[in-house]
């Protein structure tokens, strides 16, 4: 990013700005460079861009590069020993660790369920509140309520509801007239992850509903009118007008849900601490556990780097699969 600043700084010395009269015939490729106020526009423009750009440089790019470097060292958060380069030792240790593979498996399981279910539910919600009707704002607000509730509070609340004698089991028992005796959801390795999946979808579906809604609103109403004139059924309208019209939104929703799912952390940290028997541990949870609790900054950086590469790969594959075919 620093290199991009060079042209604008070099410019004033190269030509006297504003030397050419405005409107003078300049058939060259870049006539705007000589118009009056050019220098002022460059300086004010960079002045406006700089604060945010510098902050992003300092608090996103720099730590990212730093993390990349630390992954190949033996750095600890607080350590009297000097930091040494250790090559790929951290990665060798990581790939030999069964907990890491378990975490990867858990996150894959989580993503494979959450991505399709959450996007479908979010789309259904968006379709239900797309058209204006009496009370539309009430439903929009209620559907969005879980999103404005902090994931920490949500996890705490569901931790309470998932108890063996908690609300979920009582509701199940009441609605099934006592037939279903619920599990001890979070303390059973078989049900802990499904329980976390359910609350995660409950919390985040409203956010993706808003993104779907944006896509739905961008489809012209005339298309629906034309479809109705042709006698298209509701299903055909959805299949041939709505679904193709949502194409750009689809890839956005897919990528954001996937990245969010792979980064699973808060729920696990509050509810299960990765247990029982590592059945809910995740990549980020392992990174925070080793980096923060055990202060192994370098090992945690290696996990973060693997995670980042994974996110990049999956976004790239999704972009490729949902690319414009023409």
């Amino acid at each position, binding site marked *: *990013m620093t290199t*991009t600043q060079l*042209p*604008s700084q070099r410019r004033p010395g190269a030509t006297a700005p504003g030397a050419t009269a405005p409107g003078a015939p300049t058939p060259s490729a870049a006539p705007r460079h000589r118009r009056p106020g050019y220098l002022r*526009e460059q300086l*004010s423009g960079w002045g*406006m*861009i700089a*604060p*945010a*750009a510098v*902050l992003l440089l300092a*608090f*996103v790019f720099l*730590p990212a590069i*730093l*993390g990349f470097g*630390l992954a190949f060292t033996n750095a600890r958060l607080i350590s009297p020993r000097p930091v040494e380069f250790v090559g790929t030792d951290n990665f060798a240790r990581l790939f030999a660790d069964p907990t890491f593979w378990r975490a990867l498996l858990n996150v894959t399981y989580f993503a494979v369920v959450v991505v399709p279910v959450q996007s479908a539910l979010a789309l*259904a919600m968006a379709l*239900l509140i797309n058209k*204006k*009707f009496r009370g539309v*704002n009430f*439903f*929009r*607000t*209620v*559907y*969005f309520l*879980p*999103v404005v509730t902090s994931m*920490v*509070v949500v996890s*705490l*609340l569901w931790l309470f509801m998932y108890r063996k*004698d908690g*609300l979920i089991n009582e509701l199940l*028992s009441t609605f099934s007239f006592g037939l279903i005796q619920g599990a001890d959801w979070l303390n059973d390795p078989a049900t802990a992850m499904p329980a976390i999946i359910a609350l995660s979808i*409950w919390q985040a579906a409203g956010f993706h509903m*808003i*993104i779907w*809604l*944006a*896509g739905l609103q961008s489809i012209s109403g005339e298309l629906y009118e034309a479809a*109705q004139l042709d006698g298209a059924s509701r299903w055909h*309208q959805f299949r041939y007008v709505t679904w193709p019209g949502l*194409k750009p*939104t689809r890839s*956005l929703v897919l990528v954001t849900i996937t*990245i969010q799912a792979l*980064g699973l952390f808060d729920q696990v*940290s*509050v509810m299960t601490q990765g247990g029982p028997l590592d059945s809910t541990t995740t990549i*980020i949870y392992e*990174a925070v556990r080793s980096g*923060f609790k055990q202060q192994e900054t370098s090992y945690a950086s290696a996990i*973060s780097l693997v*995670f*980042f590469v994974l996110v990049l790969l999956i*976004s790239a594959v999704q972009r490729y699969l949902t690319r414009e075919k023409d």
Partner: protein
Amino acid sequence: MKNALRLSSFGAMAVRILFAAVAAFPIVFMLVSSLKPDQQIFGDMSSVAAFLPIGNISLDNYTAVFDRVPAARFLINSIGVSAVTVVLGIFINSLCAFGLSRMEVRGKRVVFTAILATLIVPFQTLALPLVWWVNQLPYFELNGFSLEISKGWLDTYQVQIIPFIANAFSIYLYHQYFESIPKELDEAARIDGAGWFKIYRQVVMPLAGPATATVAILTFLPAWNSYLWPLMVVQSEELRPVMIGIQYFFQLNVSWGEVMAYASLITVPVVILFIAFQRSFINSIASSGVKG
């Protein structure tokens, strides 16, 4: 219009209500339980009473919360940190988007691409190197009349604010919104002799209200809800934000009524704020904000 009528038919309304019930029941349960003693919370769970403020209702749990946790201090900290982050975030990100969208700045495409690239870096992967990094940063403090420079931002207010001011998604939202405002307005203002900052402040920003509402909410939520970051960088009790307070309830005997009261206490302000802004927020995302 016929379609709209059919959609709002009885069946669709039933599904809407079902979804609303699923979305709302845990929150209603939390608010109602915060008013009840523990025994009654468990007693009411098998019936609809779990969702109704009936029986032995009181604010006892709330007074107990303030005895157990310095809740007032945590609330003040969170309000302060969130408010400063939101105000500075709106200013700095809109300014950046203005430069990128409405001015012919050389190299802006590269910068915009680089800014958007930060969207794919999840914060969790940055957190650990960031802890190490902020601990190296200098810290200026006015002590009487002398300026003191110390090292390390750990355990301060600014470590909870400054890393989160600039935000690629906010810049993107403003950028999209600014693109929809006719450039002729700028031209007219320039002919009248207005400088770029004046155009930003008096022409473009007053028209960008919905984008500002969206950015305000999307900056406020993570600031108010932040948990992982303060857990790592804030040790002093007097600097802690509200989410960290939750830990206090699991140290000794757990009272779920108190937990629900504290959870309600830190959720209700956000819900009120959201309802106040929701129309412009949802409409702005839904009509022009996010597009793929």
